[in-house]
């Protein structure tokens, strides 16, 4: 099982000091956080893609290439790559290029994006969100899987004998996850292709995640990719830790109370009960996280949101120290002991390449 962090890349004022990082500072901090994630032994770091303030994260592959050059083991992913407003030709090209630079140490998570005004900036309409995700991904697959593509669809100009370059590393496209909060169509899409399904999980009640993962597993089996418990599932999580739960709550509350998305709303205590947010001791985070398995089954990837709402870099780095030293080693051991015998790991470039080679031998 893989453990890591995901970030959205928001530029938010620290409510306790009034300091607002510059975009430059935020972008460099994101790199520092990614490098720290590798240092503390995490497996994955995922970067957001946003095209509007207060985010400084419009070009994830640029950041990923830079981080890939400064790290050696950690897998780089996205949270998420916007499949609706990004031209699938550019996604095919950018991520293949990145695969070569990072020696295959990447994958990506597709998402639709729920910010209505962004769509028209890219010539699209949010009301076509699902249709865009379906058509664009179908094209993306062909651009990676076929050397020469002739294609016509509803949302971009036709392609005539087009070859997306560079070709995927070793002829193996990056593994794809599909992320969604509560659109059954996206769980269906992930199942149809036998791709991974990632449930954002955070900020929402666990019931959404449970429903979506159950649907994905059922349909994964229906489409013949394996049994339901062999489907590839990822979950988000949101934590803030201190040695004692009282300290954790006291330190995080000022950030929670005015955070983007959920701030000025429910109390920290109510939100912890209603969503996977865990503010407490490392032991509490371990127990809560192990509990996710009760409603999604054995899963392959757990990503935590650690760096939003204006938390300063020094705090985030300390949180990562706790995550890497006290939480993840225990989770690795406990999840491994609980996992069923036929549950696969999340695919990597190496495993996909090996599978392709053994297929070629069999033929």
């Amino acid at each position, binding site marked *: 099982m893989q453990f890591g962090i995901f970030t959205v890349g928001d530029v938010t004022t620290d409510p306790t000091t009034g300091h607002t990082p510059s975009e430059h500072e935020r972008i460099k901090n994101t790199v520092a956080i990614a490098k720290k994630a590798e240092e503390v032994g995490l497996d994955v770091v995922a970067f957001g893609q946003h095209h509007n303030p207060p985010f400084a994260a419009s070009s994830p592959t640029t950041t990923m290439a830079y981080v890939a050059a400064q790290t050696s083991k950690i897998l780089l992913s996205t949270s998420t790559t916007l499949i609706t407003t990004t031209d699938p030709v550019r996604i095919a090209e950018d991520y293949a290029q990145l695969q070569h630079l990072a020696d295959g140490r990447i994958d990506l998570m597709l998402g639709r994006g729920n910010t209505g005004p962004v769509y028209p900036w890219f010539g699209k309409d949010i009301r076509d969100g699902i249709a865009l995700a379906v058509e664009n991904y179908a094209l993306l697959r062909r651009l990676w899987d076929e050397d020469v593509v002739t294609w016509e669809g509803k949302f971009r100009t036709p392609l005539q004998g087009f070859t997306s370059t560079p070709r995927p590393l070793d002829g193996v496209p990056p593994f794809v996850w599909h992320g969604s909060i509560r659109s*059954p*169509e996206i769980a269906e*899409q992930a*199942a149809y292709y036998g791709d991974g399904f990632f449930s954002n999980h955070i900020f929402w009640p666990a019931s*959404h995640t449970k429903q979506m993962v159950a649907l994905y597993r059922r349909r994964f089996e229906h489409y013949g990719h394996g049994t339901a418990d062999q489907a590839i599932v990822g979950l988000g999580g949101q934590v803030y830790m201190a040695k004692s739960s009282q300290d954790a709550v006291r330190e995080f509350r000022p950030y929670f109370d005015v955070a983007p998305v*959920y701030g000025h*709303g429910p109390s920290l205590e109510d939100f912890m009960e209603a969503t996977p947010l865990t503010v407490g001791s490392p032991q509490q985070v371990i127990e809560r996280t192990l509990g996710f398995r009760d409603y999604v089954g054995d899963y392959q990837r757990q990503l935590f949101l650690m760096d939003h709402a204006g938390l300063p870099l020094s705090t985030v780095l300390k949180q990562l120290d706790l995550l890497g030293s006290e939480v993840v080693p225990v989770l690795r051991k406990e999840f491994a002991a609980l996992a069923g015998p036929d549950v696969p790991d999340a695919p990597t470039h190496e495993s996909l390449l090996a599978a392709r080679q053994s297929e070629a031998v069999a033929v």
Partner: protein
Amino acid sequence: MSRSIVVISAGLANPSSTRLLADQLATATDVALRSHGEAADVHVIELRELAHPLADHLLTGFPTGELAQAIEMVRKADGLVVVTPVFAASYSGLFKMFFEVLDKDLLRGKPVLLGATAGTARHSLVLEHAMRPLFSYLGAVTVPTAVFAATEDFGRAGSGDFAARIATAGRELAALVLGAPRVVPQDPFDNVTPFDQLLKG
């Protein structure tokens, strides 16, 4: 057999004249259902108790605790009695908030009896100019007779017209409930559109 009638009252005081009207409308509906050999299984939702969860829902996008239960109750209801006080010449903000957070189409085809209260009868057209358009937009089937109660309607001599109007409204809601198919909540996760169909656009 009993039919589920959910009463939604946006009254703020206790006791509240809004709740008083709501209870009378529910009783009239029960009486009418009983005359057809059925009965009302009445559940009351006091929106006052849901004010905080409603504000939270606007910010977070999901219902918690008692609000989630209230929405489930509405989903399963065979008919609704909805009553609001008139604030600033319309339904109250709290009343509107509840209907804003319901899933799209949750009220579609559901029989709804409208009621409103105010200090003066001059506000009575709030029923027709504010409430009925709201419920038409939500796709509900509104009962033709809506009931307005001004302060003077409670306990004054010669309020027979008022009582008769409540009885008429209750009969009309009962008739719509009896004529409507039983509510069978649908789970969108049970009937997913197959991907071949999504691919065809």
